[in-house]
């Protein structure tokens, strides 16, 4: 048997942190090895006996004065808390057990923990290798609405054109609210083991909050009330919010909806009648490009693991189309406002040009959707058919 290990507390009391030294000595003792405790703190012997009792160690107290207070024989429970503990990383798990809960990836998790409600815990369902890099880009690309936009830039538009800008901004805010709510609904259900995915979506939610802010601020810039919100537009967005499947929701929102919005925001930046409108659309566009890139990367990864998802995604487009067949789609007010905004005035020749540009935009949106669908493995013909079924509300 090993000779006793010796721990000298000097004049440190067990009520002043001395238990750290005892704890370390006990946990390092070889099986059967005794820990000799020395020290000069006045209450050391009283406290040593009490500490050993509460920790489940046997102790033999020394008789008489002298530097040795007693000898600890470590109890059976020493270190038992960590029997059966699991390492939760650092490598990614194929399925993160819900009992790992909120533990940092890579932490050693005590056995017997409670189950956490993180149903999205399959690597094949949530993960993409692109997530860490996209998160780094997202974190580096954050901008401050207060300083990124020159809110004092001159905005002197005809009342009719200003009204069209306000209507478009009103429509954008409504859609940004949906783009915020959809990832937010899934965020708390994704296992924190896949922290880069959670981080990307968390920043995405914050991005959308800023988009809501800057579009609202542009709409209110001249002190006018906001524009109109229609039943058809909201019905289309509700189908997005109600989608329970993460992959399907991400596909509908980021690949199709935000993918379509890239063209819309780029169009608005190009044809904006004032510098503030151009700037807020430019800022949102940069964020949206990242949201679409993440959506594409995630869906590509999920489809690689599960080819059976491809027809399910296609079916979801059909279902959404059928559900919205009875609604008006993009509301007249928004469509007309886009024409006026692109025209820049109500002169007939300008309106003709604006109308042509909006038609062009529509074609660009369709082409973009088809390109993304083909990239995700759909046959070009199917991609064309699916793109044509996409909601007329754009998002």
């Amino acid at each position, binding site marked *: 048997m090993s000779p006793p290990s010796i721990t000298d507390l000097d004049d440190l*009391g*067990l*009520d*002043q942190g001395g238990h750290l030294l005892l704890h370390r000595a006990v946990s390092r003792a070889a099986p059967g090895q005794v820990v000799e405790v020395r020290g000069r703190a*006045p*209450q050391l012997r*009283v*406290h040593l*006996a*009490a*500490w050993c*009792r*509460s*920790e*489940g160690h046997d102790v033999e107290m020394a008789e008489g004065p002298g530097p040795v207070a007693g000898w600890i024989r470590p*109890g*059976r*429970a020493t270190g*038992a*808390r960590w*029997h*059966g503990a699991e390492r939760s990383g650092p490598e990614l798990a194929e399925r993160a057990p819900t009992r790992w809960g909120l533990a940092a990836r890579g932490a050693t998790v*005590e*056995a*017997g923990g409670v189950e956490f409600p993180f149903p999205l815990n399959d690597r094949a369902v949530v993960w993409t290798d692109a997530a860490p890099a996209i998160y780094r880009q997202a974190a580096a690309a954050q901008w401050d609405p207060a300083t990124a936009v020159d809110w004092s830039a001159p905005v002197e538009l005809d009342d009719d054109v200003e009204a069209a800008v306000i209507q478009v901004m009103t429509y954008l805010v409504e859609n940004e609210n949906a783009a915020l709510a959809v990832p937010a609904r899934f965020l708390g259900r994704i296992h924190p083991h896949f922290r880069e995915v959670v981080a990307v979506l968390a920043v995405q939610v914050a991005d959308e909050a800023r988009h809501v802010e800057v579009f609202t601020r542009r709409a209110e810039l001249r002190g006018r009330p906001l524009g109109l919100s229609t039943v058809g537009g909201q019905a289309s967005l509700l189908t997005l919010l109600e989608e329970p499947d993460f992959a399907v929701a991400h596909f509908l929102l980021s690949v199709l909806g935000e993918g379509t919005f890239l063209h819309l925001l780029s169009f608005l930046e190009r044809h904006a009648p004032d510098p503030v409108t151009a700037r807020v659309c430019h800022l949102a566009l940069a964020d949206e490009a990242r949201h679409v890139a993440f959506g594409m990367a995630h869906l590509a990864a999920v489809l690689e693991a599960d080819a059976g998802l491809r027809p399910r995604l296609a079916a979801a487009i059909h279902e959404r189309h059928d559900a919205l067949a009875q609604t008006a789609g993009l509301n007249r007010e928004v469509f007309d406002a886009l024409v006026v905004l692109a025209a820049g005035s109500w002169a007939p020749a300008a309106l003709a040009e604006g109308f042509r540009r909006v038609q062009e935009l529509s074609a660009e949106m369709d082409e973009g959707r088809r390109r993304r669908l083909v990239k995700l493995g759909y046959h070009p013909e199917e991609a064309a058919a699916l793109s044509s079924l996409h909601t007329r509300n754009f998002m």
Partner: protein
Amino acid sequence: METLVMGAVAYDAKVVTIWDGFKQWFAANGLAFDYVLYSNYERQVEALLAGHVQVAWNSPLAWARAHRMAKARGLDVVPVAMRDTDCDLTSVVVVNASSGIEDVAGLAGRRVAVGAVDSPQATLIPLSYLRSEGLEAGRDFDVSHHQVGVGKHGDHIGGERDAARALVAGTVDAACMIDGNHLLFSAEGTLPPGSTRIIGQTPTYDHCNFTAAATAPAALVEQFRSLLLGMSYDDPEVRPLLDLEGLKAWRVGRVTGYAQLEAAVDESGFYDQEGHVAAVDYRP
């Protein structure tokens, strides 16, 4: 299937969590077990002797009473099991380091804070210890009670903490508490580090036990005991229950650690030999 029914005193809301957890664990391990909660130990001991419960999770003072009542009726009670943390406790008498009181004799004419009137560790045993050192409470020194949870036999730590606070506040000259609580109060800052001195320490004594009536079904009691003794801190299902109840392992019950308390009960006349409550100022 016969059910073993145990009594426990509800000294804290966590008692429900603890015994619900044990009930489930016992059921999963083949023992039909249920529990009844009492608001004080006197009613629990009376229920044990009346056969309403077959086992009681007893304070040492409740053990002393159960054992007296049983004897008076020609019956027997046995300690089935206890926690490792119930074995070999001591209580200490603590003064302010700056008080100039060097030993127990220095308490003559002073004021000593104790816990509730029915606390074995903070009142009965320390006062008996001081008596053995020649100091009679009320005659040689004044006693200041800290009546928290009367009837719960000092299970509630509040009485001891209040006594410690009275010492710090200077309204008393000494305070009595379990050794482990002196460590706890010093570490948590109730007693400022280095501000107190221990001038007396009782011999070791034992604390709670599961007390079984002799009329309890022997096979069930034996199954209960062997399941308890088999509970391992290694087992993640069991560990939270042991943590809540404050132990690392159960031990076989023993009667060897109760002599000090029995003497204290006799000296103070807390119970008579038949186990009647005789303390005049005790309202559980």
